[in-house]
């Protein structure tokens, strides 16, 4: 039996529902040495800012139980270099591109989104309002993550929505009391989808040196350790949203991805698992197809939100 893996993410048609989490897959080329990245539903690239960023000091990584803490600080080549050096490879591959963008102000996001659209540098925009590792973002109400402030989420999303017609995804933070408020704020402001979840704030201390393990002191926790939290947040959001959810957080194998679909995600992103196993995303895609066949489900769409209570 053939199964229909295609999904529509707020106007972005994908041949299958598997992408990668921003920051875990570089700009695609890094992993094309291991598999043909055009097999993915989409490639989500590392955050792009207007100007190049050096990011945080090292050490930036520490391993923790069933996961890792990172504090990269959005090191990236900047928009110009992305368009000149990274984009041509992705376009040649023909894989849909979700461009994750990061700015300090709504104006910067607007400039990023509109320049990406003009340059055909993306097929969808993923707005990163939830990076825990940068210290230069503060909303008017003094909250350090835009995604923690539903009014700011609405303000940023609305501004970008007005400037760009590409499908607009808003990546939200799990570091909130309730995920439904920022998710609804994004939807009402015109987002076409939300991405859940970014990393959880965490830290680790070296008992011998008494120093934090990360130069940035705190970092973002990812990996299978966070998966139950991510599944629950997808479920919370799915019950109140009309727009699709791209689910992510500790997906290591196909059965993990299935959990996200059942909880209400329309697509999934493989993140840290690509670090451990470079071909993980494609194996997960194959596993999803096998699952559908095994359960005689004709299309992935039928699985979305199909958890039984």
């Amino acid at each position, binding site marked *: 039996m053939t199964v229909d893996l295609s999904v529509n993410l707020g106007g972005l048609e994908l041949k299958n529902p598997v992408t990668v989490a921003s920051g875990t897959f570089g700009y695609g080329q890094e992993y094309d040495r291991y598999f043909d990245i055009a097999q993915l539903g989409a490639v989500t690239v590392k955050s792009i800012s207007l100007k*190049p960023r050096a990011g945080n000091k090292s050490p930036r990584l520490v391993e923790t139980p069933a996961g890792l803490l990172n504090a990269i600080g959005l090191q990236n080549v900047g928009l110009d270099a992305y368009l000149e050096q990274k984009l041509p490879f992705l376009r040649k591959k023909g894989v849909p591109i979700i461009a994750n963008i990061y700015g300090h102000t709504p104006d910067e996001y607007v400039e990023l989104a509109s320049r990406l659209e003009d340059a055909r540098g993306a097929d969808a925009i993923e707005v990163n309002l939830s990076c825990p590792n940068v210290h230069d973002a503060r909303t008017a109400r003094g909250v350090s993550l835009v995604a923690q402030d539903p009014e700011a989420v609405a303000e940023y999303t609305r501004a970008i929505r007005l400037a760009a017609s590409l499908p607009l995804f808003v990546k939200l933070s799990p570091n909130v009391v309730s995920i439904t408020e920022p998710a609804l704020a994004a939807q009402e402001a015109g987002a076409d989808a939300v991405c859940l979840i970014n990393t959880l704030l965490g830290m680790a201390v070296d008992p011998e040196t008494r120093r934090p393990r990360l130069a940035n002191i705190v970092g973002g926790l990812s990996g299978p350790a966070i998966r139950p939290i991510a599944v629950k947040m997808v479920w919370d959001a799915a019950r109140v949203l009309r727009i699709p959810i791209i689910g992510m957080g500790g997906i290591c194998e196909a059965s993990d991805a299935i959990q996200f679909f059942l909880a209400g995600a329309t697509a999934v992103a493989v993140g840290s698992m690509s670090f451990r196993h470079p071909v993980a995303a494609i194996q997960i895609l194959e596993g999803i197809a096998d699952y559908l066949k095994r359960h005689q489900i004709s299309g992935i769409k039928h699985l979305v939100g199909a958890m039984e209570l």
Partner: protein
Amino acid sequence: MPLLTEGEVLANEAVAPGHFRMRLRAPDLAREAAPGQFAMLQVAHGLYPFLRRPMSFERIFPMDVTFLYKVRGEGTQMLSRFHPGQKIPVQGPLGNGFPITPGFKRHIIVAGGIGVAPFPGLAAVLIRRFGKAPEIVLAARTASLILSEDDFRQMGCDIHIATDDGTAGTEGLASDVLEQLAPDAATRVYACGPMVMLRAVAEIAATGKADCQVSLEAQMACGEGACLGCVVESVREQEGERMIRVCIDGPVFDGTLIDWEAHDPAYDR
């Protein structure tokens, strides 16, 4: 092209307190590998430790590679418990190895502690290529942690030993010995060890106008240049180019590229 493959453990034995050597049968990997490159070993079947462990090749044989490693945490602890016959998922070879280029009258290897790991293989290649054994500076805290001395001796290398406590060779640092050897413009120095040692080595090399290649170590998630977790600061001034990745831009770098001032020794262990 790096591979995802599986190696069979042929041997995995203690060579010094807390230090092991693993010999892995992995013909595809061995065929591609070069000294200074590394592989990522997946030590856990389950999800903890989650990440693979980067290990530089010690020796490269037609069918096998060896890794010389120090037990530092749970990952290397688990690695040390592998038995002959067991399989281990391995990814590699990764990164850039040591440059092997003519034009140098002297080749001096400087190894601090477990930093000796990539050098038996390098010495073998230098001998094969230039017909002359490199000089070796081996340094460690104490005599029992001087590794691979016999291997280098068998290859005919001149060996200079230094220990912090004077239990073998001269009492002092690798850099003290290198200074005595006076590397000059016709010398290439290859160094691996703690950052403080590498910095001193790079400075001595620069003083003598010697070429200096340092192999760095870092916490690493992907080994592929994607995660940006393993960066060190370079002397490049442009914001987007300052941070260089140990995994894919290195792990071997020209010593003059590293911004030694920017490194915070408080995180060294």
